[in-house]
């Protein structure tokens, strides 16, 4: 039977896994599309690595089904799955040269020697390691070892390449360069990448779509901009990027419209339906600072004392005490009118933002 191009390449349905008393993965259902760069993010212990290991075949789910490329993977051993995993430690075989490492999978599959040689060369070119074939892993840098691990997996032309925290062992500069390179590599080879990371900014910058996990469950699957601009819940809003949260209570008098009352922000009207406690949120870069009240129709405004400035070069994070438990954080770019603001700790500032930039979060 022919696979349709728009069928998902990975289809998870109700996948659960328990380790002792810990529910590592809890009834996860999600689809990964063919050829996309997919990221699983979440705080440590959220089950993302367990999920990845189940995809690779190193753990068996207690319940649910895993389908890869239209085939049920329940009874398929790790070595026979059409996926390859790039390990966090890279797991480059220390007693084999670069070329032997990259050719290992092909050798096992009984690939003829000429073909093996050509494919190893091509894979090494792809990860820019040509000329290093004879080197032993202990003479390579961390970044080069990772390239070996990538080439070793890609040379087998898997349907899906799984990457477990691939950038966590690299230093900051190299990590950023490698992020770009991984995205470029993925578009070049056209293989579906599934990456696991605890670093939300890494996921935002690389992935086409992201699944945010918490306590074994997937909270939201969306594109980076959707996740950022329209988080589905309080956890996702808080985990992806920085955000200011306000407790509020929603009540509905007319069907289809609700009124949200917050002690700090007053009342806001919204479409939708909700009852009871909700959270209002605003991203720090949406907030404008001024020394004078600048209330315009449709804007929200709070006044407070500036308590701290964290300078980052291109922008600063400014903390304003507005009488809540947490100070309000605003992000101010170091360009244009903001430079004339003369930020100083202890000064009185008005923070304002558009009412529609206020996010309504249900839980």
């Amino acid at each position, binding site marked *: 039977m022919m696979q349709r191009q728009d069928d998902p390449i990975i289809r998870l349905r109700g996948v659960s896994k328990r380790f002792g008393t810990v529910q590592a993965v809890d009834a996860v259902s999600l689809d990964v599309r063919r050829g996309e760069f997919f990221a699983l993010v979440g705080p440590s212990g959220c089950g993302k690595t367990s999920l990845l290991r189940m995809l690779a075949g190193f753990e068996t789910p207690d319940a649910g089904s895993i389908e890869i490329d239209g085939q049920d993977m329940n009874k398929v051993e790790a*070595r026979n799955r059409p996926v390859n995993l790039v*390990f966090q*430690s890279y*797991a*480059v*075989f220390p007693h084999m040269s670069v070329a032997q490492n990259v050719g*290992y*999978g092909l050798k096992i*599959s009984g690939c003829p020697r000429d073909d093996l040689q050509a494919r190893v060369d091509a894979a090494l070119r792809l990860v820019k390691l040509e000329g290093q074939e004879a080197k032993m892993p202990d003479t390579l840098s961390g970044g080069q070892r990772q390239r070996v691990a990538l080439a070793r*997996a890609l040379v087998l032309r898997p349907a899906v390449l799984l990457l477990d925290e691939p950038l966590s062992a690299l230093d900051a500069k190299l990590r950023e360069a490698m992020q770009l390179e991984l995205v470029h590599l993925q578009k070049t080879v056209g293989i579906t990448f599934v990456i696991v990371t605890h670093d939300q900014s890494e996921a935002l910058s690389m992935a086409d779509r992201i699944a945010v996990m918490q306590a074994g469950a997937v909270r939201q699957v969306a594109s980076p901009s959707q996740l950022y601009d329209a988080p589905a819940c309080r956890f996702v809003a808080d985990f992806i990027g920085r955000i200011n949260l306000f407790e509020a209570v929603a009540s509905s008098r007319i069907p289809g419209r609700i009124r949200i009352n917050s002690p700090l922000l007053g009342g806001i009207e919204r479409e939708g339906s909700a009852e009871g406690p909700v959270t209002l949120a605003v991203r720090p870069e949406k907030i404008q600072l001024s020394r004078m009240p600048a209330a315009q129709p449709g804007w929200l405004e709070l006044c407070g004392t500036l308590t701290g400035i964290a300078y980052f070069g291109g922008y600063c994070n400014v903390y304003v005490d507005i009488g809540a438990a947490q100070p309000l954080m605003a992000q101010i770019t170091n360009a244009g009118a903001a430079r004339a603001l003369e930020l100083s700790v202890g000064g009185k500032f008005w923070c304002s933002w558009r009412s529609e930039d206020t996010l309504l979060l249900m839980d």
Partner: protein
Amino acid sequence: MRILFRRARPGPLEYHRRWPLRLVMAAALLFLYAPLVALMAFSFNDSRRNIVWHGFTLKYYEKLFANTELMLAFANSLTIALCSTLISIILGLSAAYGLWRFRFPGRTLYQSVMAMPIVIPEICMGVAMMAFMARTGWPQDLVWPFNLGAIIIAHSAFSFPFAAIVIQARLESFNRELADSAQDLGAGEFRVFCDIILPHLRPAIVAGGLLTFTLSLDDFVITFFTSGPDSVTFPVKIYSMVRFSVTPEVNAASTLLIVITVALTALALRLQQRAAAGVPAQ
């Protein structure tokens, strides 16, 4: 000028440069090694008696190599050591790998029972082995080298835990992601073992092998109880020669054994150090 050559007074923690510790050290060296040095020196002594130095000769080494009984004992010892080393490595490797790879009920118990032969007094092992061989009616009158079977079995039994422990220590430093990775690339369990785990264990296997080899080569107690009249080993033969008189020939034979044992132990230690240092960190 004088100041350059005078040595500084010992510092507060430099005990090794003060006389009490030096005295203890000298005494220890004297009692431990002087007999051995004398034994080796007198193997070159040109005299029937081992008391007065009469001049240098190699004639006792010639006599030694002409002594067919002693040479047969030496050949027996080497054969036993070789065979028991091979068996010990296979058993030790299997035990260490099994304990590392699998979780099974009684694992901790087996772990401690396996190490028993290391702590059990050799004399008990020897008597037990003798009783066992007598009880099972192990044939005594087989042709060489099959007449060595009983000793080989006894030696393997007491020396394989040593191999197992050395290999186990090496396995601890194995990165399991390497095995997972090989599996991910398509290798089955056996291939993973041969391609990835064995190369990692190689220094430990060599070190463990050399250790068991020397243990077997110079073992006296257990061998004494399990050897028959036709399966005399080198240490047992030396013992029987000494019972008549300590001739320079015995000295020469002992010197030979010392040299072989020390050389192999040194090699084993070096390899073990390399094994402990491990492959450069990933």
